[in-house]
Structures are given as C-alpha cells and as structure tokens.
C-alpha cells in the first residue's frame, strides 16, 4: 500500500499505456450486468459496489489493467480516478498479469517460525522462479503473503485468491502441484478443532462441494 504511493505499479491515469484487451473484449455480458445491478442495490450509493465489481472484472479478465478499471468506472458511472484509487489500494486486485495459479505463501508471524520460509524456498526451487515472479510458461506466480488468518495450520498457502492449503510438507506441496497440473480444482479443506477431536472424534465440514474454486458468491435475496 504505502509502496504504491512512491512507485505506482500501473501507469498513472494521465498516461496512455498500451491496452491488453480490445474494444470488443471490454464488455460485460447481460448476466454480469444484472449481477452489477444487484450489487449496486445493496448500497446507498453505487460507490459501495466498486469492490464487488472489481472482483467480478478480475474474475473475467484475470487482472485489472487500466482499460478494465475504466470499464468498471463507466459501468458504475464513477470517476476513473476513484476506481483506479481503489484497485491500487488492495493487494488482492492484480494490476499486472499473473500466472494461471497464484501461490500466496504465508511467511508472516506464526508461519515464519513453522516453516513458511522453507515452503517458499522449496517452491522457488521446484518451480525455478523467485518469489514475486511468474514462471516462463505462465502457469505459476509465486508470492509471499502476509498473515492469511490460518496461523494454527502453519505453514500454509492460498491458491489464486481461493482455497487454502494447510500444514504444508514437501510431499503435500508435490501433490498439490500435481493436482493443479492435472487441472483439478483444489478442494475446500476444513480444519478440525483440537477440542472437537477430543470430545467428538473430529468434526469437519462436509459440504466441500459448496465451495467452488475462485468464485464470486451469489447475493442473498433482498428485502425489497
């Protein structure tokens, strides 16, 4: 965040960078537009829906170059500068093209001392790419992440802003990479609470199928 102020990661609004997407590609489908209308209805002003629509756009285009931000701005009738400002504030909005799979390895706090950096080093070696970079084949981007809120299952990582993988070991990482190579969606894994283990022999959520890989969730039905 603070870094963006000194070193903007995308061209500033007043310059004219080369577009990644053509005019024909830069449209929302009627279904997407209906979704956007729903998002907007949830807030007193359309501004509130910016993050939802940026998520939607990122899911569709893979990342958020200036022309996509402009599309979002037009769709919500907001100034481009505001959308640009929001998109560049958050780390999960990708301002540049990433690999098919983005591996966010947590190296913060608990993970630091439970093998977070070992995991990162193992992946660097295995994928032949340094942290913060994408493999030449364009399949994997390896990143160092701040605490992802799963410190009890350290070391852990998140894949493409979606599923978590816990208690990583070299074998587990190999299996995960093999599954990704085979194009299998990673499952949602439920963490067993230690007390549940003692009192009821374990308790995991069984509705893994309810979580799709990299999904923008549907909306709850509204009152009006």
């Amino acid at each position, binding site marked *: 965040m603070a870094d963006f102020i000194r070193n903007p990661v995308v061209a500033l609004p007043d310059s004219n960078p080369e577009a990644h997407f053509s005019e024909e590609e830069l449209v929302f489908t009627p279904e997407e537009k209906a979704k956007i209308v729903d998002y907007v209805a949830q807030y007193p002003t359309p501004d509130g829906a910016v993050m939802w629509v940026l998520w939607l756009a990122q899911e569709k285009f893979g990342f958020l170059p200036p022309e996509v931000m402009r599309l979002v701005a037009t769709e919500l009738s907001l100034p481009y500068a505001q959308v640009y400002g929001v998109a560049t504030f958050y780390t999960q909005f990708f301002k540049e093209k990433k690999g098919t799979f983005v591996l966010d390895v947590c190296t913060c706090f608990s993970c630091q001392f439970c093998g977070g950096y070992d995991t990162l080093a193992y992946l660097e070696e295995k994928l032949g790419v340094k942290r913060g970079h994408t493999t030449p084949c364009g399949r994997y981007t390896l990143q160092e992440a701040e605490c992802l809120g799963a410190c009890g299952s350290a070391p852990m990582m998140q894949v493409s802003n979606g599923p978590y993988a816990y208690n990583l070991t070299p074998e587990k990482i190999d299996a995960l990479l093999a599954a990704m190579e085979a194009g299998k969606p990673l499952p949602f894994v439920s963490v067993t609470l230690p007390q549940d283990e003692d009192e009821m022999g374990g308790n995991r959520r069984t509705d893994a199928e309810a979580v799709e890989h990299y999904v923008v969730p549907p909306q709850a*039905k509204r009152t009006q």
Partner: protein
Amino acid sequence: MTKAGDWQSYRRVLLPPVKDLHHLDVYRAQGGYEALRTVLNDWKPEEVTAEVKRSGLRGRGGAGFPTGLKWSFMPPVKPDVPRYLCCNADESEPGTFKDRQLMEYNPHLLFEGILIAGYAMSLKACYLYVRGEFSSWITLLQNELSKVYDAKLAGSNILGTDYSMDIIMHKGAGAYICGEETSLMESLEGKRAYPRIKPPFPAQSGIWGYPTTINNVETLACAPIIIDRGGDWFAGVGAKKHPGPVLYGISGHVNRPGVYEYPTGMLITDLLEIAGGMRDNKKLKALVPGGASVPVLRADMIDGVTMDVESLHEAGSMMGTAGMLFLDEDTDMVAFLRRVARFYHHESCGQCTPCREGTGWMENLITRIDDGEGNLRDLDLLLDLCDQMEGRTVCALADAAAWPVRNTIKRFRGDFERRCRPSAWAVNT
C-alpha cells in the same frame, strides 16, 4: 490462582461439539434463533442493550471496549435516518484465526447475534465485511445466509414481527488496515481505505454519514448466548472484569495448535498445557498473547498471568485478539521483529508521515541489524522512533507497530546487542 474457575468442566457455547452445526436445521434443532424470537416478541430494544451491559461483554476485536456501552452510544432513532451495523470479519491481525473458525462451524450464531444487535439498536442493515482472502468462507456464509432469508429469519418482517433487517456481505481485497473501524467504513463506501480522524465517532457519523456501530464477529456471536442464558450467567464465566467465553487461537511451537474455547482468565501456563506443551520438549522463550500488535512477553514473565485485560496489563502486555503465539528457545527474536516490522511497513496505508516513514525506517534498521551490519546505537534510534510514532497518527496502526518493536527490544535486548557492532557515538535525542 486462575480466574477462570472450574475450566476443566467448562462446556463450549461458541463452538459447541455438535456435528454439522452450520446447517440451519441442525442449528435450529439445538434451540437456535430462539433467542432472537424471544427478543423480538417480548423484549424492548433498550432491554437488550441493558442485558448486554449486565453481561460485561467486552469487544473481542482487539480493543476490548465494553459492548453494551458501545451500543448505547447510538443516537435516538430518527425516522428517515437509516442506522447501520458493520460486522468486522476482516481478521488480518497476525496470529489471529478465531473468526474464521467461528464462521466455518457456527455461522448461524453470528447471524443471530447480528439480528439481535440490529434489534437492540433499531438498525436497517448490517454489512458483514469479510477479508477477501476468505473467499471460500464468503461462499459458505452466503449459502447459509440465503437459507436464513428463505426461512424469514432475516429481511422484512422477521419471524412475522414488524421488525426488518438485512444482512449484506461485503468482500474485502487484502488490506490489514480495513480492520480498523473507520478504514472499514471508507472501504465499504468504495474509497481507498484511509482511516478517518475521530471524532466524529461512528455512532454519530459512520458509513455514508449515518449512525453506525462496528463489532467483531466473536463479539456479536456472544449476543444470542447472553440472551439465552442471561447476562448474569455470562458475567459469571471467567475473569470478573473481562468475563465470558473466548476463543483462544494458539499457534507457534506447540504440539496441538488451533482454536480453543475456554473462559477468559485462563492461566497462560494452563493454556500451554492444553495445547500439548512445547514442540520437541523445547523450552518456551517468548509469548505474544494477543496478535502481532501487543507487546511480547518473556517466558519468565508469564508465571501466574491470566488471559484477561487486568492481569495482562499488569504483566506488561494486552489481551488483543487472544491469538497466542508461543515461541521456543531457538527462536531468533531479531528475525521475528524484522518480519513484524515488515508487516506493518507493508500494511501502513501511507496517510500519516510518522507511520508511513516510521514503519519503513523500522524495517530498514532491523533488517540492518539482522544482517549483522547494525550498530548498537541503532537500538536507541529504534526506541526513539517508537516515541516519534506513538499517538501522533490518525489511527492506531502506528502504535500497534511501535509497541512490539519497543517491547521486543527492551525485553530481549541481549539478543539484539549480540548482533550489533559496538558504536562509540550515542544517539542524540
């Protein structure tokens, strides 16, 4: 003496041992949403707030502010002025992972708590702000929320009464600062999430300028329990001045890390034992009792210390989020602090100079020491930097960055000095 009382026979209420409790029908079969029904049918809104006050519940989001008191700050109801609740599920404090487990196992307790809070303060809607990394949990919550709407437990005319309230999910996108209450509101409004100067406080002017209350997930999940069992029951659990059940998120070099539900006021040594003791029979070196922002405690400082605001304050730390990190004797405290400083540097929103520049300086100085190129006087420079940052910024992130730095250096000064080159010049401050 522990203040937790007879914790061995404590029965969990936030995360009770019930299979598939996240299903609406299972939750209802356990008596779920009955507290909401009772409140809507038989209680006046101010009676709910009074009961929460009586329970002594303090916020579980880090600051530990009394919840009933916070609710009573909402101005009198005016027609045409909507009032809002923000549920803070941005959980990004390093070492904290309890809200995620609560949303995974007992989402309906949270929804019921939100609706009860909404009734107590006559609110129009609640924005449930979940950090973007929890996208799987957002989907899970959304699925259950749809069922809540279908069962007429949320939306218009809840349970056939004339009370209506919406619960609306909002997805963050990876910014620690959005956990700060005013920053969260800016983020909801679709702006860069720069914290606001207070006053005005959220109860006067919150999201879109409307009266707003903001509470943590675990705090709101306590509401149905307070209604169900009574404020007096709640006040009788755990430490007197900081009562109730609490989710301890235990991580680090212990045998069985994870989220544990116990009363407040537990002895830290008991909790370590519950978590299976230290890994590989190593000795404890340091403990962070409540997430990265709170001062670290040395192993010799935890004897007789219990997990509640009073005892931890006496010991020289804070309760924070009750996300406890245990570190063993081999831990390199310089590397620890370097990573903590990096976190704050990365997450500073950049609005205030002392914070934006200070966190960067901190990281640079500690990195230099960690690389063996630091001078002894750098330690004093760091402490001076902490003084320059604390209390001089818009939000508490700068303080939260200064506390661990100051206390880690003070409490593990030897570890730092061994890594520094001696320097003849003192720091001029």
